[in-house]
């Protein structure tokens, strides 16, 4: 059954992509006050989809969004084929230069789940950073490995081989995961490092969060990573991750919010790092991330874009939109920064 569900989802994603051109052409003809278009992160796409209708009613703005991946979103805003881009990874300096007068604004907060498919094991499995790094480096290849077993006493783990599923495109979710692995494993940091794509030593590449979730769903023994919403959609289990206080936490609102409170001061480029927070944030889920909207400072759509973004970081954060998807409302300290950043946009 999960196989069928996955196929339907993948097919509908492709159908949606194919229909995009038609929809864009159709809506261009329809009477509408204003259209704001964006593209990028698949991580944030379930939340943006929730916003679309509300924005139409409240602001009279038609919001269009294509979830083509963070890398694609950065490329799209750099070439100005959209009004905004969305990325879970902050821009690199080369990307900032190429984008020519862009700023990034944190506009959503969520967690990356480490999903797994292990038939026959009912328990919610525990995992810690060092072991996860070894798994993603191909040093631990079986579920029955002592390192996994010692984290899950009392659970009988099968001898199944582990298959890693990772993103083949440039992805902010990959950035979030590798950022975490680098902070918990010195050998990951020196051999692989942090990036929207890394030189994966093992595993199977798939496109988009839905692609990774699809591989995990159809491969017994697989481990992959994506925004929690994708794990829930595919009925996949995900690890409870051990944080610095020794607690095992899941990517729910409590854990993510606790992690977010660890960085109250955005850097000059508005980026925030909340991965693997220190011990005093006892409930923190260690693989949490802010995700960013990237906008040009000068744009002919300044008025509509400002209205839209202001709505997104305030009304858009309420439980009606965020709770079901396991996104978490932005903390006040970040809101202050966002308002200042939004007011800089001009025509």
């Amino acid at each position, binding site marked *: 059954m999960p196989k069928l569900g996955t196929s339907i989802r993948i097919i509908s994603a492709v159908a949606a992509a194919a229909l995009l051109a038609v929809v864009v052409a159709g809506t261009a003809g329809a009477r509408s006050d204003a259209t704001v278009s964006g593209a990028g992160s698949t991580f944030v796409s379930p939340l943006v989809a929730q916003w679309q209708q509300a924005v139409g009613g409240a602001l009279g703005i038609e919001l269009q969004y294509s979830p083509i991946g963070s890398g694609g979103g950065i490329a799209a805003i750099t070439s100005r084929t959209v009004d905004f881009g969305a990325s879970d990874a902050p821009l690199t300096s*080369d990307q900032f230069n190429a984008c020519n007068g862009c700023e990034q604004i944190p506009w959503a907060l969520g967690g990356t789940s480490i999903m797994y498919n292990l038939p026959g094991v009912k328990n919610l499995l525990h995992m810690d950073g060092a072991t996860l790094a070894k798994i993603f480096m191909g040093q631990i290849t079986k579920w029955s490995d002592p390192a996994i077993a010692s984290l899950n006493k009392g659970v009988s783990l099968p001898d199944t081989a582990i298959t890693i599923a990772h993103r083949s495109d440039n992805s902010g979710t990959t950035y979030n995961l590798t950022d975490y692995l680098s902070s918990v494993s010195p050998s990951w940091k020196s051999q692989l490092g942090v990036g929207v794509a890394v030189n994966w030593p093992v595993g199977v590449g798939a496109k988009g969060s839905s692609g990774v979730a699809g591989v995990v769903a159809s*491969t017994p023994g697989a481990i992959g990573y994506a925004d929690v919403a994708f794990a829930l959609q595919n009925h996949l289990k995900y690890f409870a991750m051990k944080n610095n206080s020794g607690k095992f936490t899941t990517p729910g609102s409590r854990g993510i919010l606790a992690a977010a409170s660890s960085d109250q001061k955005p850097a000059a480029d508005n980026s925030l790092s909340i991965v693997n927070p220190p011990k005093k944030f006892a409930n923190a889920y260690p693989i949490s991330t802010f995700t960013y909207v990237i906008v040009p400072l000068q744009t002919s759509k300044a008025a509509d874009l400002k209205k839209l973004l202001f709505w997104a970081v305030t009304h858009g954060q309420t439980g009606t939109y965020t709770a079901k998807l396991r996104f978490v409302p932005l903390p006040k300290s970040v809101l202050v920064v966002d308002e200042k950043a939004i007011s800089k946009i001009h025509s």
Partner: protein
Amino acid sequence: MSAADISAEPVRRPFTGRRVRFGDLLLQALAGGAALGATVLVGLIVWKLIDGAHPALSKYGLGFVTRIAWNPVVGHELYGAGSFLFGTVITSFFALLVATPLAIGVALFLSELAPRVVQAPVTALVETLAAVPSVLVGLWGILVLGPALRTHIEPWLHSGLGWIPLFGTPSAAGASVFTAIIVLAIMILPIVSSISRELFLGVPSELKEGALALGTTRWEMVRGVVLPYSRGGIAAALILGLGRAMGEAIAVTQVIGGGVFIHWNLFGTGDTLGSKIAASYQGASTNLQSASLIYLGLILLVLSLAANIVAQWIVRRVSRQHGVTRGGHA
């Protein structure tokens, strides 16, 4: 060059002594313009590729072509085309190996053996295969072919032929070089088979009937008359297919699984020049990475041009030999 010549002097050689007619002039201008446009376009593409790849070209030089590395992490950056070049050669070679006998078989069946009632519908169906968009073939590869190969074909090949390094440990997730090979073979099959069919139909029926009249079996007739007669054309069709296989990006990206390494196990994952470009061009994190991706494109272009030149050489050689043998028989 020739394009420029045509458009430069609108000659009226065929109409010497007559008035130049407006229609002829228009035809000259349009056709010449189209030829010139195509030439300029190829030039522009090459120039743009070299220009875009310049940062990587000047940093890595030719060492890039064989180096096995692809690390896009800022601070660890190092790029090379070695593993992708290997992947491209392996996938297209084996795809051709799988597709050739099938395509020629299909073509022979449709041109020589099939009853008339079957011919038309089957021909139409085979040609429809060529019209299926590659992204759909890739999707079918993910959902149907990959899992089927993983659970049935790969373990079977591994248990029987596992001593050959090509048939190593079966893939776990259904994404593998092998899946990519089969997908590519399916994509080049209709091209090769429809060209071959046309070629076989073009074999003069006197020759075929003559052979049959001498008492040959159908198979002997095919082997002795039809195949030798169309050898050059088949070679050209195969190279066309090879070009398609080498350049295909989307469908391969969907099923090959990725990875920067060289190994001979077809059931492992890998990457090709085209699939790497398709997967990572959008949102490359540094200028050096984009330049290196364009460098991959440049290598792919050179590879395709080389394949084309070899193809033309083969066709010319084979058809010359062919002319000699035919003369000898007569």
